[in-house]
Protein backbone atom coordinates (compact mmCIF):
# COMPACT_ATOMS: atom_id res chain seq x y z
CA UNK A 1 0.00 0.00 0.00
CA UNK A 2 1.43 3.34 -0.96
CA UNK A 3 1.88 6.13 1.51
CA UNK A 4 -0.81 8.08 -0.19
CA UNK A 5 -3.35 5.27 0.18
CA UNK A 6 -2.42 4.96 3.82
CA UNK A 7 -2.94 8.68 4.29
CA UNK A 8 -6.37 8.55 2.66
CA UNK A 9 -7.35 5.52 4.76
CA UNK A 10 -6.26 7.27 7.93
CA UNK A 11 -8.29 10.35 7.01
CA UNK A 12 -11.26 8.11 6.22
CA UNK A 13 -10.90 6.53 9.65
CA UNK A 14 -10.91 9.87 11.39
CA UNK A 15 -13.83 11.12 9.27
CA UNK A 16 -15.84 8.05 10.26
CA UNK A 17 -14.91 8.54 13.91
CA UNK A 18 -15.99 12.18 13.78
CA UNK A 19 -19.22 11.17 12.03
CA UNK A 20 -19.93 8.61 14.78
CA UNK A 21 -19.18 11.18 17.48
CA UNK A 22 -21.35 13.77 15.75
CA UNK A 23 -24.29 11.36 15.59
CA UNK A 24 -23.81 10.50 19.26
CA UNK A 25 -23.55 14.19 20.04
CA UNK A 26 -26.88 14.83 18.37
CA UNK A 27 -28.40 12.01 20.43
CA UNK A 28 -27.14 13.65 23.61
CA UNK A 29 -28.30 17.04 22.41
CA UNK A 30 -31.84 16.00 21.64
CA UNK A 31 -32.53 13.21 24.13
CA UNK A 32 -30.55 13.74 27.27
CA UNK A 33 -31.00 17.45 27.76
CA UNK A 34 -33.36 18.45 30.57
CA UNK A 35 -36.94 17.81 29.60
CA UNK A 36 -37.92 15.34 26.93
CA UNK A 37 -39.89 15.24 23.74
CA UNK A 38 -43.16 15.05 25.64
CA UNK A 39 -42.62 18.37 27.34
CA UNK A 40 -41.90 19.89 24.00
CA UNK A 41 -44.62 18.35 21.94
CA UNK A 42 -47.85 20.18 22.17
CA UNK A 43 -50.10 18.00 24.29
CA UNK A 44 -51.75 20.40 26.71
CA UNK A 45 -53.97 18.85 29.41
CA UNK A 46 -52.71 15.34 28.72
CA UNK A 47 -53.51 12.88 31.49
CA UNK A 48 -50.55 11.08 33.09
CA UNK A 49 -51.65 7.87 31.32
CA UNK A 50 -51.61 9.59 27.95
CA UNK A 51 -48.18 11.04 28.63
CA UNK A 52 -46.98 7.57 29.65
CA UNK A 53 -48.41 6.03 26.47
CA UNK A 54 -46.76 8.67 24.36
CA UNK A 55 -43.46 8.23 26.13
CA UNK A 56 -43.71 4.51 25.45
CA UNK A 57 -44.62 5.08 21.83
CA UNK A 58 -41.60 7.33 21.33
CA UNK A 59 -39.43 4.87 23.22
CA UNK A 60 -38.26 7.46 25.71
CA UNK A 61 -39.34 5.46 28.77
CA UNK A 62 -36.46 3.03 28.29
CA UNK A 63 -32.96 3.37 29.70
CA UNK A 64 -30.72 5.82 27.86
CA UNK A 65 -28.32 3.11 26.70
CA UNK A 66 -31.15 1.18 25.06
CA UNK A 67 -32.41 4.35 23.44
CA UNK A 68 -28.91 5.06 22.16
CA UNK A 69 -28.77 1.61 20.51
CA UNK A 70 -32.26 1.99 19.05
CA UNK A 71 -31.32 5.43 17.76
CA UNK A 72 -28.46 3.97 15.74
CA UNK A 73 -30.61 1.06 14.62
CA UNK A 74 -33.32 3.29 13.18
CA UNK A 75 -30.71 5.61 11.70
CA UNK A 76 -29.22 2.64 9.87
CA UNK A 77 -32.67 2.03 8.40
CA UNK A 78 -32.84 5.64 7.27
CA UNK A 79 -35.53 6.30 9.85
CA UNK A 80 -35.21 9.79 11.28
CA UNK A 81 -38.55 9.70 13.00
CA UNK A 82 -41.79 11.59 12.34
CA UNK A 83 -41.99 15.34 12.18
CA UNK A 84 -43.97 16.89 15.05
CA UNK A 85 -45.42 19.39 12.65
CA UNK A 86 -47.08 17.22 10.03
CA UNK A 87 -46.45 13.64 11.22
CA UNK A 88 -44.63 12.89 7.98
CA UNK A 89 -41.31 10.99 7.98
CA UNK A 90 -38.47 13.47 8.48
CA UNK A 91 -36.31 11.79 5.87
CA UNK A 92 -38.76 12.37 3.01
CA UNK A 93 -39.24 16.06 3.81
CA UNK A 94 -35.50 16.44 4.25
CA UNK A 95 -34.70 14.88 0.88
CA UNK A 96 -37.08 17.23 -0.92
CA UNK A 97 -35.45 20.16 0.86
CA UNK A 98 -31.97 18.94 -0.06
CA UNK A 99 -32.99 18.65 -3.69
CA UNK A 100 -34.03 22.30 -3.66
CA UNK A 101 -30.99 23.46 -1.74
CA UNK A 102 -28.29 21.87 -3.87
CA UNK A 103 -28.70 23.87 -7.13
CA UNK A 104 -28.72 27.15 -5.21
CA UNK A 105 -25.78 26.20 -3.01
CA UNK A 106 -23.69 24.90 -5.88
CA UNK A 107 -24.44 27.78 -8.25
CA UNK A 108 -23.72 30.40 -5.58
CA UNK A 109 -20.48 28.88 -4.32
CA UNK A 110 -19.16 28.07 -7.79
CA UNK A 111 -19.64 31.69 -8.91
CA UNK A 112 -17.94 32.89 -5.72
CA UNK A 113 -15.05 30.44 -6.05
CA UNK A 114 -14.35 31.33 -9.67
CA UNK A 115 -14.66 35.10 -9.20
CA UNK A 116 -12.97 35.00 -5.79
CA UNK A 117 -9.97 33.09 -7.16
CA UNK A 118 -9.61 35.44 -10.15
CA UNK A 119 -9.85 38.53 -7.96
CA UNK A 120 -7.61 37.12 -5.24
CA UNK A 121 -4.88 36.10 -7.66
CA UNK A 122 -4.97 39.42 -9.50
CA UNK A 123 -4.94 41.35 -6.22
CA UNK A 124 -2.10 39.23 -4.85
CA UNK A 125 -0.02 39.92 -7.92
CA UNK A 126 -0.12 43.66 -7.47
CA UNK A 127 0.20 43.66 -3.70
CA UNK A 128 -0.08 47.15 -2.27
CA UNK A 129 -1.29 48.78 -5.47
CA UNK A 130 -4.51 50.75 -5.68
CA UNK A 131 -6.19 47.83 -7.40
CA UNK A 132 -5.15 45.41 -4.66
CA UNK A 133 -6.39 47.80 -1.95
CA UNK A 134 -9.70 48.27 -3.73
CA UNK A 135 -10.24 44.54 -4.17
CA UNK A 136 -9.12 43.62 -0.66
CA UNK A 137 -11.24 46.42 0.76
CA UNK A 138 -14.29 45.24 -1.16
CA UNK A 139 -13.75 41.65 -0.03
CA UNK A 140 -13.38 42.74 3.61
CA UNK A 141 -16.49 44.89 3.34
CA UNK A 142 -18.60 42.06 1.89
CA UNK A 143 -17.22 39.77 4.56
CA UNK A 144 -18.42 42.18 7.26
CA UNK A 145 -22.00 42.41 6.07
CA UNK A 146 -24.69 40.25 7.62
CA UNK A 147 -25.96 37.90 4.91
CA UNK A 148 -29.62 38.36 5.75
CA UNK A 149 -29.20 42.11 5.43
CA UNK A 150 -27.40 41.81 2.11
CA UNK A 151 -30.25 39.60 0.92
CA UNK A 152 -32.87 42.15 1.97
CA UNK A 153 -30.95 44.93 0.19
CA UNK A 154 -30.88 42.82 -2.98
CA UNK A 155 -34.64 42.38 -2.72
CA UNK A 156 -35.21 46.10 -2.17
CA UNK A 157 -32.95 47.05 -5.06
CA UNK A 158 -33.60 44.38 -7.65
CA UNK A 159 -36.97 42.76 -7.03
CA UNK A 160 -38.42 44.93 -9.79
CA UNK A 161 -36.51 42.75 -12.28
CA UNK A 162 -36.11 39.47 -10.47
CA UNK A 163 -38.65 37.53 -8.42
CA UNK A 164 -37.70 37.52 -4.76
CA UNK A 165 -39.36 34.38 -3.47
CA UNK A 166 -39.79 30.73 -4.30
CA UNK A 167 -38.20 28.48 -6.91
CA UNK A 168 -40.68 28.94 -9.72
CA UNK A 169 -43.79 30.78 -10.79
CA UNK A 170 -46.80 28.63 -9.79
CA UNK A 171 -48.96 30.36 -12.42
CA UNK A 172 -46.67 29.66 -15.32
CA UNK A 173 -48.83 28.38 -18.19
CA UNK A 174 -46.18 27.61 -20.79
CA UNK A 175 -44.63 24.24 -19.98
CA UNK A 176 -42.05 24.30 -22.76
CA UNK A 177 -38.45 23.63 -21.74
CA UNK A 178 -37.22 27.18 -22.38
CA UNK A 179 -40.10 28.85 -20.59
CA UNK A 180 -39.57 26.70 -17.52
CA UNK A 181 -35.82 27.19 -17.71
CA UNK A 182 -36.02 31.00 -17.88
CA UNK A 183 -38.52 31.02 -15.06
CA UNK A 184 -36.24 28.92 -12.85
CA UNK A 185 -33.19 30.96 -13.81
CA UNK A 186 -35.03 34.16 -12.91
CA UNK A 187 -35.98 32.79 -9.53
CA UNK A 188 -32.55 31.47 -8.65
CA UNK A 189 -30.75 34.69 -9.69
CA UNK A 190 -31.09 36.77 -6.53
CA UNK A 191 -30.50 34.07 -3.89
CA UNK A 192 -27.54 32.69 -5.86
CA UNK A 193 -25.98 36.14 -6.19
CA UNK A 194 -26.50 36.63 -2.48
CA UNK A 195 -24.73 33.38 -1.59
CA UNK A 196 -21.98 34.24 -4.07
CA UNK A 197 -21.46 37.65 -2.42
CA UNK A 198 -21.34 36.03 1.02
CA UNK A 199 -18.73 33.43 0.02
CA UNK A 200 -16.79 35.77 -2.25
CA UNK A 201 -15.32 37.95 0.52
CA UNK A 202 -13.49 35.35 2.59
CA UNK A 203 -12.63 33.34 -0.48
CA UNK A 204 -10.94 36.21 -2.31
CA UNK A 205 -8.92 37.04 0.83
CA UNK A 206 -7.72 33.46 1.13
CA UNK A 207 -6.92 33.21 -2.58
CA UNK A 208 -4.94 36.44 -2.31
CA UNK A 209 -2.78 35.29 0.58
CA UNK A 210 -2.18 31.84 -0.97
CA UNK A 211 -1.05 33.61 -4.12
CA UNK A 212 1.21 35.93 -2.10
CA UNK A 213 2.77 32.94 -0.43
CA UNK A 214 3.27 31.20 -3.76
CA UNK A 215 4.79 34.28 -5.36
CA UNK A 216 7.41 34.38 -2.62
CA UNK A 217 8.53 30.86 -3.58
CA UNK A 218 11.96 30.20 -5.06
CA UNK A 219 10.66 28.52 -8.17
CA UNK A 220 8.77 31.70 -9.06
CA UNK A 221 12.04 33.62 -8.82
CA UNK A 222 13.65 31.05 -11.10
CA UNK A 223 10.82 31.42 -13.59
CA UNK A 224 11.29 35.17 -13.55
CA UNK A 225 15.04 34.77 -14.03
CA UNK A 226 14.34 32.60 -17.06
CA UNK A 227 12.56 35.59 -18.49
CA UNK A 228 8.99 34.26 -18.54
CA UNK A 229 6.30 36.89 -18.93
CA UNK A 230 4.02 38.06 -16.12
CA UNK A 231 1.05 36.04 -17.24
CA UNK A 232 2.99 32.81 -17.27
CA UNK A 233 4.65 33.52 -13.91
CA UNK A 234 1.40 34.43 -12.21
CA UNK A 235 -0.84 31.74 -13.62
CA UNK A 236 1.39 28.82 -14.52
CA UNK A 237 4.12 29.04 -11.92
CA UNK A 238 2.69 30.72 -8.82
CA UNK A 239 -0.97 29.82 -9.16
CA UNK A 240 -0.17 26.15 -9.46
CA UNK A 241 1.17 26.08 -5.94
CA UNK A 242 -1.48 28.48 -4.67
CA UNK A 243 -4.19 26.17 -5.94
CA UNK A 244 -3.72 23.73 -3.09
CA UNK A 245 -5.10 25.83 -0.21
CA UNK A 246 -7.74 27.14 -2.60
CA UNK A 247 -8.99 23.63 -3.37
CA UNK A 248 -8.97 22.67 0.30
CA UNK A 249 -10.94 25.80 1.09
CA UNK A 250 -13.44 25.17 -1.66
CA UNK A 251 -14.57 22.03 0.08
CA UNK A 252 -14.65 23.76 3.47
CA UNK A 253 -16.62 26.61 1.91
CA UNK A 254 -19.47 24.31 0.95
CA UNK A 255 -19.71 23.36 4.60
CA UNK A 256 -19.87 26.91 5.81
CA UNK A 257 -22.15 28.05 2.99
CA UNK A 258 -24.78 25.64 4.30
CA UNK A 259 -24.93 27.70 7.49
CA UNK A 260 -25.37 30.96 5.60
CA UNK A 261 -27.87 29.27 3.35
CA UNK A 262 -30.30 29.16 6.28
CA UNK A 263 -30.49 32.95 6.31
CA UNK A 264 -30.58 33.38 2.54
CA UNK A 265 -33.33 30.80 2.07
CA UNK A 266 -35.30 32.38 4.84
CA UNK A 267 -35.25 35.77 3.09
CA UNK A 268 -36.05 34.37 -0.36
CA UNK A 269 -38.54 31.72 0.84
CA UNK A 270 -36.47 29.12 -0.99
CA UNK A 271 -37.92 25.76 0.07
CA UNK A 272 -34.59 24.12 0.93
CA UNK A 273 -32.82 22.90 4.03
CA UNK A 274 -32.48 26.47 5.34
CA UNK A 275 -36.16 27.24 5.18
CA UNK A 276 -36.92 23.81 6.69
CA UNK A 277 -34.64 24.79 9.60
CA UNK A 278 -36.48 28.07 10.12
CA UNK A 279 -39.86 26.30 10.07
CA UNK A 280 -38.66 23.56 12.40
CA UNK A 281 -37.33 26.16 14.82
CA UNK A 282 -40.54 28.15 14.91
CA UNK A 283 -42.67 25.01 15.32
CA UNK A 284 -40.15 23.53 17.80
CA UNK A 285 -40.17 20.45 15.59
CA UNK A 286 -37.31 18.56 17.24
CA UNK A 287 -37.19 15.41 15.07
CA UNK A 288 -36.94 17.63 12.00
CA UNK A 289 -34.26 19.81 13.61
CA UNK A 290 -32.30 16.73 14.52
CA UNK A 291 -32.54 15.38 10.98
CA UNK A 292 -31.35 18.69 9.55
CA UNK A 293 -28.53 18.94 12.07
CA UNK A 294 -27.37 15.41 11.26
CA UNK A 295 -27.56 16.06 7.55
CA UNK A 296 -25.56 19.29 7.71
CA UNK A 297 -22.92 17.91 10.07
CA UNK A 298 -22.42 14.72 8.11
CA UNK A 299 -22.17 16.58 4.81
CA UNK A 300 -19.55 18.90 6.31
CA UNK A 301 -17.58 15.89 7.55
CA UNK A 302 -17.88 14.34 4.08
CA UNK A 303 -16.69 17.54 2.40
CA UNK A 304 -13.73 17.79 4.74
CA UNK A 305 -12.79 14.25 3.86
CA UNK A 306 -13.17 15.06 0.17
CA UNK A 307 -10.84 18.02 0.72
CA UNK A 308 -8.26 15.71 2.31
CA UNK A 309 -8.47 13.30 -0.60
CA UNK A 310 -8.06 16.05 -3.15
CA UNK A 311 -5.16 17.39 -1.15
CA UNK A 312 -3.51 13.98 -1.29
CA UNK A 313 -4.12 13.72 -5.02
CA UNK A 314 -2.71 17.16 -5.76
CA UNK A 315 0.21 17.12 -3.37
CA UNK A 316 2.04 13.82 -2.84
CA UNK A 317 4.09 15.37 -0.01
CA UNK A 318 1.04 15.41 2.23
CA UNK A 319 1.34 11.70 2.84
CA UNK A 320 4.88 11.89 4.14
Amino acid at each position, binding site marked *: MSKRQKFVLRRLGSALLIAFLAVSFSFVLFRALPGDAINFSRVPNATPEQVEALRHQLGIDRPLVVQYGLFFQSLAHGDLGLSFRDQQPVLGTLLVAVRNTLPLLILGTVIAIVVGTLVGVTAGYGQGTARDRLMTGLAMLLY*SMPVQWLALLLVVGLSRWFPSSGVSDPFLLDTGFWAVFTDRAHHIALPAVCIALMVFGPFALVARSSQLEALADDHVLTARAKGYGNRRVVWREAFRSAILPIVTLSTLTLGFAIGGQVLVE*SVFSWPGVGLATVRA*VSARDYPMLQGIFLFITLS*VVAFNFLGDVMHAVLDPRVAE
Partner: protein
Amino acid sequence: MSLTRRLLRRRTVLVGGIVVFAFVLIAILAPLLEPYPVGKISGDPFAPPSAAHWLGTDQIGHDMLSLTLDGARNSMMVGFAAAIVAIVIGGTLGILAGYRGGWGETGVAGLTDFFLVIPSLPLMIVIAALFGQTIYHIILVIGLLSWMGVTYVVRAQVHTLKERGFVARARSLGAGDFHIIRRHILPHVAPLLVAQTVLSVATSIFMEAALAFLGLGDPQRISWGTIIQRANQNSAVSSGAWWAIVPAGVCIALVVLGCFLVGQGVEEAINPRLGHAHVSPRFFRRRTATVEDEQ
Protein backbone atom coordinates in the same frame (compact mmCIF):
# COMPACT_ATOMS: atom_id res chain seq x y z
CA MET B 1 9.33 50.11 19.44
CA SER B 2 6.57 48.98 21.73
CA LEU B 3 3.70 46.89 20.45
CA THR B 4 1.16 49.66 21.02
CA ARG B 5 3.26 52.18 19.08
CA ARG B 6 3.74 49.72 16.26
CA LEU B 7 -0.01 49.11 16.18
CA LEU B 8 -0.99 52.76 16.13
CA ARG B 9 1.33 53.37 13.21
CA ARG B 10 -0.83 51.10 11.09
CA ARG B 11 -3.57 53.17 9.57
CA THR B 12 -5.98 50.24 9.30
CA VAL B 13 -5.65 49.43 13.00
CA LEU B 14 -6.12 53.08 13.94
CA VAL B 15 -9.24 53.46 11.79
CA GLY B 16 -10.69 50.13 12.97
CA GLY B 17 -9.95 51.01 16.58
CA ILE B 18 -11.62 54.40 16.29
CA VAL B 19 -14.75 52.86 14.74
CA VAL B 20 -15.05 50.20 17.44
CA PHE B 21 -14.36 52.70 20.20
CA ALA B 22 -16.97 55.08 18.77
CA PHE B 23 -19.57 52.31 18.84
CA VAL B 24 -18.65 51.39 22.41
CA LEU B 25 -19.21 55.05 23.36
CA ILE B 26 -22.51 55.11 21.47
CA ALA B 27 -23.62 51.95 23.25
CA ILE B 28 -22.81 53.44 26.66
CA LEU B 29 -24.26 56.86 25.94
CA ALA B 30 -27.30 55.60 23.97
CA PRO B 31 -29.96 56.80 26.45
CA LEU B 32 -28.55 60.34 26.29
CA LEU B 33 -28.29 60.39 22.51
CA GLU B 34 -31.73 59.01 21.66
CA PRO B 35 -33.94 61.78 20.29
CA TYR B 36 -37.11 59.98 21.44
CA PRO B 37 -37.52 57.53 24.31
CA VAL B 38 -37.52 53.92 23.10
CA GLY B 39 -41.02 52.52 22.86
CA LYS B 40 -42.60 55.93 22.25
CA ILE B 41 -44.68 56.17 19.08
CA SER B 42 -43.55 59.47 17.69
CA GLY B 43 -44.54 59.42 14.03
CA ASP B 44 -46.50 57.68 11.28
CA PRO B 45 -45.74 54.02 10.45
CA PHE B 46 -42.84 53.71 7.98
CA ALA B 47 -42.43 57.49 7.65
CA PRO B 48 -39.42 58.27 5.47
CA PRO B 49 -36.43 60.15 6.89
CA SER B 50 -37.24 63.77 7.73
CA ALA B 51 -36.03 66.58 9.99
CA ALA B 52 -38.02 65.17 12.90
CA HIS B 53 -36.92 61.56 12.27
CA TRP B 54 -33.48 61.51 10.72
CA LEU B 55 -33.71 57.83 9.90
CA GLY B 56 -37.46 57.65 9.46
CA THR B 57 -39.74 55.43 11.54
CA ASP B 58 -40.48 51.71 11.78
CA GLN B 59 -43.72 49.83 11.13
CA ILE B 60 -45.38 51.19 14.29
CA GLY B 61 -43.96 54.69 14.21
CA HIS B 62 -40.96 54.36 16.52
CA ASP B 63 -38.04 56.61 15.66
CA MET B 64 -35.46 54.53 13.78
CA LEU B 65 -32.50 56.54 15.08
CA SER B 66 -33.50 55.85 18.69
CA LEU B 67 -34.02 52.16 17.90
CA THR B 68 -30.64 51.88 16.20
CA LEU B 69 -28.86 53.59 19.11
CA ASP B 70 -30.62 51.36 21.61
CA GLY B 71 -29.83 48.34 19.42
CA ALA B 72 -26.16 49.26 19.76
CA ARG B 73 -26.37 48.65 23.51
CA ASN B 74 -27.63 45.09 23.24
CA SER B 75 -25.67 44.10 20.16
CA MET B 76 -22.41 45.40 21.61
CA MET B 77 -23.17 43.80 24.96
CA VAL B 78 -23.79 40.40 23.37
CA GLY B 79 -20.66 40.87 21.26
CA PHE B 80 -18.34 41.65 24.13
CA ALA B 81 -19.88 39.31 26.71
CA ALA B 82 -19.90 36.30 24.36
CA ALA B 83 -16.34 37.11 23.30
CA ILE B 84 -15.25 37.11 26.94
CA VAL B 85 -16.92 33.73 27.53
CA ALA B 86 -15.17 32.34 24.45
CA ILE B 87 -11.80 33.80 25.46
CA VAL B 88 -11.97 32.55 29.04
CA ILE B 89 -12.85 29.02 27.95
CA GLY B 90 -10.62 28.95 24.88
CA GLY B 91 -7.69 30.67 26.60
CA THR B 92 -7.77 28.44 29.66
CA LEU B 93 -8.05 25.24 27.65
CA GLY B 94 -5.38 26.40 25.22
CA ILE B 95 -2.87 27.44 27.88
CA LEU B 96 -3.38 24.38 30.06
CA ALA B 97 -3.27 21.93 27.16
CA GLY B 98 -0.29 23.58 25.50
CA TYR B 99 1.61 23.84 28.78
CA ARG B 100 0.83 20.38 30.13
CA GLY B 101 1.20 18.44 26.90
CA GLY B 102 0.63 14.70 26.98
CA TRP B 103 -2.82 13.12 27.04
CA GLY B 104 -4.49 16.30 28.15
CA GLU B 105 -3.23 18.11 25.11
CA THR B 106 -4.28 15.31 22.76
CA GLY B 107 -7.73 15.34 24.33
CA VAL B 108 -8.16 19.08 24.04
CA ALA B 109 -6.87 19.03 20.46
CA GLY B 110 -9.38 16.30 19.59
CA LEU B 111 -12.23 18.20 21.22
CA THR B 112 -11.25 21.37 19.39
CA ASP B 113 -11.10 19.58 16.04
CA PHE B 114 -14.46 17.97 16.67
CA PHE B 115 -16.20 21.24 17.43
CA LEU B 116 -14.45 22.95 14.55
CA VAL B 117 -15.97 20.46 12.14
CA ILE B 118 -19.52 20.84 13.43
CA PRO B 119 -21.04 23.84 11.63
CA SER B 120 -21.59 26.41 14.33
CA LEU B 121 -24.63 28.31 13.09
CA PRO B 122 -26.90 25.26 12.79
CA LEU B 123 -25.69 24.05 16.19
CA MET B 124 -26.36 27.46 17.73
CA ILE B 125 -29.83 27.45 16.19
CA VAL B 126 -30.58 24.05 17.70
CA ILE B 127 -29.26 24.92 21.15
CA ALA B 128 -30.85 28.37 21.20
CA ALA B 129 -34.16 26.74 20.28
CA LEU B 130 -33.75 24.23 23.12
CA PHE B 131 -32.64 26.81 25.68
CA GLY B 132 -35.15 29.60 25.46
CA GLN B 133 -34.59 33.13 24.48
CA THR B 134 -33.15 35.51 27.01
CA ILE B 135 -30.14 37.63 26.18
CA TYR B 136 -28.05 35.70 28.73
CA HIS B 137 -28.82 32.40 27.07
CA ILE B 138 -27.87 33.88 23.72
CA ILE B 139 -24.56 35.14 25.13
CA LEU B 140 -23.87 31.69 26.57
CA VAL B 141 -24.82 29.83 23.41
CA ILE B 142 -22.60 32.01 21.25
CA GLY B 143 -19.71 32.05 23.74
CA LEU B 144 -19.81 28.32 24.43
CA LEU B 145 -19.62 27.56 20.72
CA SER B 146 -16.89 29.93 19.64
CA TRP B 147 -13.96 29.07 21.88
CA MET B 148 -12.42 26.61 19.41
CA GLY B 149 -10.53 29.11 17.29
CA VAL B 150 -8.99 30.63 20.42
CA THR B 151 -7.89 27.27 21.81
CA TYR B 152 -6.42 26.33 18.46
CA VAL B 153 -4.21 29.41 18.22
CA VAL B 154 -3.29 29.72 21.91
CA ARG B 155 -2.37 26.05 22.30
CA ALA B 156 0.03 26.21 19.37
CA GLN B 157 1.62 29.37 20.76
CA VAL B 158 2.01 28.03 24.31
CA HIS B 159 3.35 24.77 22.95
CA THR B 160 6.33 26.57 21.41
CA LEU B 161 6.67 29.05 24.29
CA LYS B 162 7.23 26.38 26.91
CA GLU B 163 10.28 25.10 25.04
CA ARG B 164 11.89 28.52 25.14
CA GLY B 165 14.92 29.27 27.30
CA PHE B 166 13.31 31.60 29.78
CA VAL B 167 10.76 28.99 30.83
CA ALA B 168 13.51 26.42 31.39
CA ARG B 169 15.50 28.99 33.41
CA ALA B 170 12.50 29.87 35.55
CA ARG B 171 11.89 26.20 36.18
CA SER B 172 15.50 25.49 37.11
CA LEU B 173 15.23 28.31 39.65
CA GLY B 174 12.41 26.34 41.22
CA ALA B 175 9.40 28.23 39.87
CA GLY B 176 6.11 26.34 40.05
CA ASP B 177 3.75 25.78 37.12
CA PHE B 178 1.34 28.47 38.27
CA HIS B 179 4.13 31.01 38.56
CA ILE B 180 5.51 30.16 35.14
CA ILE B 181 2.12 30.41 33.49
CA ARG B 182 1.30 33.69 35.19
CA ARG B 183 4.63 35.45 34.81
CA HIS B 184 6.14 33.96 31.67
CA ILE B 185 3.48 32.37 29.50
CA LEU B 186 0.54 34.72 29.99
CA PRO B 187 2.37 37.96 29.08
CA HIS B 188 3.45 36.34 25.84
CA VAL B 189 0.01 35.12 24.81
CA ALA B 190 -1.77 38.30 26.01
CA PRO B 191 -1.56 40.15 22.67
CA LEU B 192 -2.81 37.03 20.91
CA LEU B 193 -5.73 36.86 23.33
CA VAL B 194 -6.52 40.52 22.65
CA ALA B 195 -6.55 39.88 18.90
CA GLN B 196 -8.78 36.83 19.37
CA THR B 197 -11.13 38.76 21.65
CA VAL B 198 -11.61 41.51 19.10
CA LEU B 199 -12.27 38.98 16.33
CA SER B 200 -14.67 37.12 18.63
CA VAL B 201 -16.64 40.31 19.25
CA ALA B 202 -17.19 40.60 15.51
CA THR B 203 -18.23 36.96 15.17
CA SER B 204 -20.58 37.18 18.14
CA ILE B 205 -22.34 40.30 16.85
CA PHE B 206 -22.79 38.47 13.57
CA MET B 207 -24.15 35.36 15.23
CA GLU B 208 -26.55 37.34 17.39
CA ALA B 209 -27.92 39.04 14.29
CA ALA B 210 -28.30 35.67 12.57
CA LEU B 211 -30.09 34.07 15.53
CA ALA B 212 -32.33 37.12 15.93
CA PHE B 213 -33.21 37.01 12.25
CA LEU B 214 -34.41 33.42 12.68
CA GLY B 215 -36.64 34.50 15.53
CA LEU B 216 -34.34 33.27 18.27
CA GLY B 217 -33.44 36.68 19.69
CA ASP B 218 -34.49 38.03 23.08
CA PRO B 219 -38.01 39.36 22.46
CA GLN B 220 -37.65 41.79 25.36
CA ARG B 221 -34.67 43.60 23.91
CA ILE B 222 -33.85 45.54 20.78
CA SER B 223 -30.65 44.65 18.99
CA TRP B 224 -29.51 45.34 15.47
CA GLY B 225 -30.45 41.76 14.66
CA THR B 226 -34.01 42.10 15.96
CA ILE B 227 -34.42 45.44 14.15
CA ILE B 228 -33.64 43.75 10.83
CA GLN B 229 -35.86 40.80 11.68
CA ARG B 230 -38.84 42.94 12.68
CA ALA B 231 -38.49 45.14 9.62
CA ASN B 232 -38.46 42.02 7.45
CA GLN B 233 -41.43 40.46 9.23
CA ASN B 234 -43.50 43.61 8.93
CA SER B 235 -42.82 43.77 5.20
CA ALA B 236 -40.58 46.82 5.23
CA VAL B 237 -39.22 45.53 1.96
CA SER B 238 -42.49 45.50 0.06
CA SER B 239 -43.41 48.87 1.57
CA GLY B 240 -40.15 50.20 0.16
CA ALA B 241 -39.09 51.31 3.65
CA TRP B 242 -35.37 50.81 3.13
CA TRP B 243 -34.63 53.11 6.07
CA ALA B 244 -36.02 50.50 8.45
CA ILE B 245 -33.43 47.96 7.26
CA VAL B 246 -30.34 49.87 6.20
CA PRO B 247 -29.10 51.57 9.42
CA ALA B 248 -28.86 48.42 11.58
CA GLY B 249 -26.98 46.53 8.87
CA VAL B 250 -24.58 49.43 8.29
CA CYS B 251 -23.83 49.50 12.03
CA ILE B 252 -23.14 45.75 12.11
CA ALA B 253 -20.92 45.97 9.02
CA LEU B 254 -18.97 48.92 10.48
CA VAL B 255 -18.34 47.33 13.87
CA VAL B 256 -17.46 43.97 12.35
CA LEU B 257 -15.11 45.58 9.82
CA GLY B 258 -13.50 47.65 12.60
CA CYS B 259 -12.95 44.53 14.69
CA PHE B 260 -11.47 42.65 11.73
CA LEU B 261 -9.02 45.47 10.99
CA VAL B 262 -7.89 45.70 14.62
CA GLY B 263 -7.68 41.94 15.14
CA GLN B 264 -5.81 41.37 11.92
CA GLY B 265 -3.43 44.26 12.70
CA VAL B 266 -2.64 42.93 16.17
CA GLU B 267 -2.02 39.43 14.82
CA GLU B 268 0.32 40.77 12.19
CA ALA B 269 2.13 43.05 14.63
CA ILE B 270 2.80 40.19 17.09
CA ASN B 271 4.22 38.02 14.42
CA PRO B 272 5.11 39.96 11.29
CA ARG B 273 6.26 36.81 9.55
CA LEU B 274 2.97 35.12 10.11
CA GLY B 275 0.83 36.98 7.67
CA HIS B 276 -2.27 34.89 7.56
CA ALA B 277 -4.67 33.35 5.21
CA HIS B 278 -7.56 33.83 7.55
CA VAL B 279 -9.14 37.01 8.75
CA SER B 280 -10.97 35.51 11.62
CA PRO B 281 -11.81 32.08 12.90
CA ARG B 282 -15.38 32.61 11.78
CA PHE B 283 -15.47 30.67 8.56
CA PHE B 284 -12.20 29.19 7.57
CA ARG B 285 -10.72 26.95 10.15
CA ARG B 286 -7.59 25.79 8.40
CA ARG B 287 -4.86 28.32 8.70
CA THR B 288 -1.96 28.65 6.34
CA ALA B 289 0.99 30.77 7.32
CA THR B 290 2.22 33.08 4.62
CA VAL B 291 5.20 35.31 4.36
CA GLU B 292 3.94 38.75 3.56
CA ASP B 293 6.49 41.23 2.37
CA GLU B 294 6.05 44.45 4.25
CA GLN B 295 5.69 47.34 1.89
